[in-house]
Each structure stands twice: as C-alpha cells, then as structure tokens.
C-alpha cells in the first residue's frame, strides 16, 4: 500500500480523480443553486410578502375577514399551492388547509409536511411556512408548496453522493491499475539499470514490441547500454593490454637487473644497487597489480564467489596468520567472535580486506598497544571490525583514507603504497557492504558492514 501511495502514476491518477470530483462538484453546485437555492429563495420572499399582507389585513379588517381572504387565496392563488392556518387567541382553528403544525409558533420559516388526498390518492406536499403570532393572541401561518424544490434537492444530494463515490472509486481503481501497468514497464527499466549497476553489462530493458512510448524508451536505453558496453569492453581491452604491456617490460627489466646483479660478482656496491632496483621494480609490480585489482572490483569485473563461510574460522585463520607479526611488534592481537556465525561471503576477498585492515592496525598501533578483530551479527547484517587503540585518525583524514595513494600524516614512517584501504573499499562495494571508520576512544575502529544477500526480485 505504501509503495502504491509512493507511485507517481497512482498519485497522478488521484490528482486527476480529485480534479474530476471538483469539476463534478462545481457543476452540481451550479445545478443545485439554480434548481434549489434560487426557487427556495423566491418561495421565501413570496411567503414573507404574503405573511406581511395578511398581517396588515388582520390589523385593518379583523380576524374573520382575514380567514375569508385566506380561504379565497387557497382556492384561487397562482403559482405553487398555497397553505395557511389561522388560529383564534383561544386556540380554535378558524381556517386551515395544513394537516398539522408545530405546537409552538417560531419566528423562523418552517418546512411542514402537508400531504393531501385527492380521490384516495396521496399527493406529497412540503409547505414552506411563516408562522407568526398576531396582536391580540391570534396565530397566523402562511405557506407555499415547495415539494418540487425539496424533491429536487433530495435527488441532487443523492446523485452527488453516488457520483462522488463512483468517481473516487474509479479514480482509485483506475489509478491502481494504471500504476500497476506503468509501474511494470518502469520496473523493467529499473531492473535493467540495477543489473548493469551490479556489473552485468549485458543487462537490457525488456521490450514488448508494441512500439509504444515505453518500448521506444526501452529501445533507446538498450542502444545506450550497448554503446556503454562496447566502450567499457574497449576500456577493458585497453587496460588489459596496458597491464600486459606494462608487466612484460617490467618482467624484462627485472630480468636484466637480475642479470646485472649476477654479473656484478664481487662488486658489492653494484650488487646492492641492482638489488635495490629489483626491490623498486617489484614494488612497481605490486602497485600495478593492486590498481588492476581495485579497478576490476570497482567496475564489477571481478565476479563475487560467495560461499557459506564459518566467519569465526575465517577470523581465527587471520589471527593465526598475523599473530607472529603482532608478537614481533609487541602488540596484543585478540579475537572477539562467537560461534555459530555463518554468512555467504567471497572468502578470498573478505580475507584480503581484513588482512589489509589488520596490516594497517598493526603498523599504526605501535608496541604495547592492542588490536581487536571482531565479528557480530545484528538485524541481518554482519559486522567485521578491526579496532586498535593507537593514535587514530582525525575526521578529515578518515574521509580521505580510501582514496588511491592517499597516505595519512602518521604514515610517513610506515611502509605502504596507499592502496590498502582503497582495495578494502572496493571489496566492500563489491559485497554491497559499508566501510565505516569511527574513533574508538582511543584509536580507530574500521568496520565492514555486510548485508545478507537478498534473493533477486523478479
């Protein structure tokens, strides 16, 4: 329901239904005014005028003459049927063609049911009556038949309820159906976009072949996606070739440097120089490998191979791998995770990410400090964290550490190429995970928050 209310199509239909209801309302209002309000006002004016005339006649000619005049009016008046009742001060009815009236007079105009019987047939009348007390205690009621007007009003009110109800129902139903129909077509575009965003560049919008607006939009988007795919493949070929073209000369360079080192024989200075050059060439190779890998992850060209993973085992293996280095550095490396903790992960990638985080933590924490590796699950998310109580990071640095080649102010004396956290960020992105850096008071806590993979919506 919430999704339906959020649908633009549905809201548009609601707007149109509202607009239609307003139009119908205005039309019916105009009709009501013409057919009910105007005639009723005319009847008001007429009854008031006649009441005033008969009051004057009563004052001028007395109660008996007034009764006679009232009878004459009932028999011979033009326009709607005339009604009256004249009561003497002692309550006797001197003349009346009204079947009943209120016990007490009111100064208001009153509607009185005044049905008549002609040859056994009941004829409905509604009398609009001015009910007044006359000087001396007599009571005069003067009225006119407004049955036609009240019936019209009733019909118009009933019609309004039905018309508004049906219009609203049609609006809502139509809106829902249109929202469903258009929503499906838009969903096809969304689905294709998501597929491409997840790295499957072969994703395309499903076209029905009806050549309608959506088909044309889908075809245009598909052409665009095909173009993007071919450009992307071209970039991929270029980067693969670049990798090849860079790695092979590097291989040759290292080969020649090794030969140089070999030829140096007893020339220690030459051997050291060649050795240093080999180290630099290897560092170049590592940077190139890391850059290529980050690029493949970011571009969705590294397909995730999720497998059911015992997360605690993964952390134990990491802890075991880094424990000797932690001991060498005088750092207390601890693990905090409880079985059972199972998740669908790309084992190698998550191991790589946590390895980079641990590596950073051990490098920056310093002797005598503590590094904690932990895993928790809450609300369908798995949180893997590496926390240290070292110097930590300020807010500006924390915002930049995932940039390629960025090295923080505390990293000058620490070996590294500034790509470790970029790779972690790329691995997080590939898993649809969040990479969070937060102060740990003291130190830093870096977390990978990995959502449980959901089955794809069809």
């Amino acid at each position: 329901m919430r999704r339906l209310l959020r649908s633009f199509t549905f809201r548009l239909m609601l707007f149109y239904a509202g607009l239609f209801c307003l139009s119908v309302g205005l039309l019916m209002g105009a009709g009501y005014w013409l057919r009910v309000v105007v005639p009723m006002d005319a009847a008001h004016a007429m009854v008031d005028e006649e009441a005033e005339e008969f009051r004057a006649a009563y004052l001028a000619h007395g109660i008996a003459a007034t009764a006679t005049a009232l009878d004459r009016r009932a028999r011979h008046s033009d326009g709607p049927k005339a009604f009256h009742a004249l009561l003497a001060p002692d309550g006797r009815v001197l003349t009346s063609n009204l079947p009943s009236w209120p016990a007490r007079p009111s100064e208001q105009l009153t509607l009185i049911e005044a049905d008549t019987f002609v040859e056994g047939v009941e004829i409905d009348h509604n009398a609009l009556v001015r009910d007044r007390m006359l000087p001396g205690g007599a009571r005069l009621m003067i009225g006119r038949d407004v049955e036609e007007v009240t019936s019209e009003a009733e019909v118009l009110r009933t019609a309004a309820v039905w018309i508004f109800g049906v219009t609203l129902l049609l609006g809502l139903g139509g809106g829902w159906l249109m929202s469903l129909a258009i929503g499906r077509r838009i969903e096809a575009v969304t689905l294709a976009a998501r597929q491409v965003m997840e790295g499957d560049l072969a994703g395309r919008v499903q076209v029905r072949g009806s050549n309608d607006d959506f088909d044309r939009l889908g075809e245009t988007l598909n052409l665009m996606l095909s173009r993007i795919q071919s450009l992307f493949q071209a970039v991929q070929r270029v980067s693969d070739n670049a990798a090849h073209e860079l790695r092979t000369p590097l291989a040759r360079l290292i080969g020649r440097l090794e030969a140089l080192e070999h030829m140096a024989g007893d020339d220690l200075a030459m051997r050291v120089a060649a050795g240093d050059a080999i180290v630099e060439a290897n560092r170049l190779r590592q940077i190139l490998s890391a850059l290529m890998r980050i690029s493949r992850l970011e571009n969705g060209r590294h397909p995730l191979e999720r497998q059911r993973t015992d997360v605690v085992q993964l952390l134990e293996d990491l802890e075991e791998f880094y424990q000797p280095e932690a001991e060498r550095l005088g750092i207390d490396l601890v693990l905090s995770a409880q079985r059972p903790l199972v998740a669908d992960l790309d084992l190698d990638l998550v191991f790589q990410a946590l390895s980079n985080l641990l590596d950073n933590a051990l490098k920056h924490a310093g002797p005598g400090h503590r590094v904690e590796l932990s895993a928790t699950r809450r609300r369908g998310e798995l949180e893997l964290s590496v926390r240290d109580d070292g110097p930590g990071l300020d807010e500006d640095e924390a915002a930049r550490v995932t940039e390629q080649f960025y090295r923080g102010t505390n990293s000058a004396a620490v070996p590294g190429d500034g790509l470790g956290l970029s790779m972690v960020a790329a691995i997080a992105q590939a898993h649809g995970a969040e990479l969070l850096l937060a102060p740990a008071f003291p130190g830093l806590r870096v977390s990978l928050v990995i959502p449980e993979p959901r089955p794809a919506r069809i």
Partner: protein
Amino acid sequence: MQILLVEDDAALAAHIMAGVREAGHVVEHCADGRDALVRATCECYDAIILDRMLPTLDGLKVLAALRATDDATPVLILSALGDVDERVRGLRAGGDDYMAKPFAMSELLARLETLARRNAPVAEQSSLLRVADLEIDLASHTVTRAGRRIALTLRELRIVAYLARNAGRVVTRTMLLENVWDYNFDPQTNIIDQHISKLRQKIAQDDEADLIHTIRGVGYMMRAG
C-alpha cells in the same frame, strides 16, 4: 628437464631461456598458441611454461585443448594477468601453477623444480618425511628432531612439511602462501618471514644446526647444514 617455453615476447623469452638453461635444463621455445599445441601434443616435455596472451590461440585455450587429450604434462602459466581471480581461472583451466609477470627468475626455477617433482608420486605421497635428523610424521602429526619432540601448530606442521617435501630446493614466500594457507590473497607485508622465524626457533634449539635457510631476495630452502 625438457621444457617447452611458450612466450610471444622475444626479449623476455630470451631471458627465460638463458635462466632455465643456466639451471641445467633443456628448453625449446615457440611464440604462438597453435604451434605450442602442436608441439605439446607431438613431443614429450617434463614441464611447459605457458604465456596466456598469445597470438593465434589464447594460452588458456591451448591448455584446455591439451587437457582434453588427457595430456598431464605439468604446466606453469606465466601471465601479465596476475590478479588473484585470474590466477584462480588459470588453475581451474588445468594449470598446475601460475606466475604473474614480472617475476624473479629464481622463483620461476623454484616453481619448475616443484612441478617436476609431481612426477615422483612415491616421495609426494610418503607420510614420513626426513631432512637430516628432523623427522615429520604426517600420519600422526608429530615432528621430532634427534628424538626430541617438537610441538607445532597445524599451520607450522604444514609449512615444515612443504619445506621438507621440497628439501634442497628453493621455496619462495609466494609458494608457501599458496600451498600452506587456504586463501588466495596478497599480504601487504612479508608476514611469512615471522612464521618462518618462529618455526626456526622451535626446530633449532641450543646448538642444533639451522635447517631452514634464507635465500636472500628469493625465499627459503630446507637442507641439512
């Protein structure tokens, strides 16, 4: 050993051939995929060094065609595509080992030696390994030196077993990482060195000779003295 080198870069091929010949092996060279497939199916080699990006026929296709004929010659894939996922692809395609360019010649030779040993299954399958007075019983997970029992973790046992299986040959850090740990990843620093250091302390105590030797810039070798 009789080795076939399939590499389209002439300068690199010359460098590899020089290194392999210097190590005492016989090496033949070809520069394209189709030629490589013809030679590999007609001749008998102890090992093949195969580049991935080749003219006429891609290296992995050559490998697949070779494995389709039930040819089990050990193949060392040599490629500029060096990411972990590419490495996994190469090994799944039937490669026995995978090396990324650029590489150190010493590592290439070490890996070739290890590949060749696969043709010696008896030694491979033995559950009792000996190097000097160090004895490793894989069946009972016990390691003793001159009768002294050495307490090792399971990982340390795997490291020492891998070194012992390749006794007398260079084992690089990458080879240890690939064969002892069950994860494909690139550690940022040489953590392997710390593991070896701890292992050394456990294996060689007091005045016992060190059996694990560091080969500078390459890796390690287990040998007596």
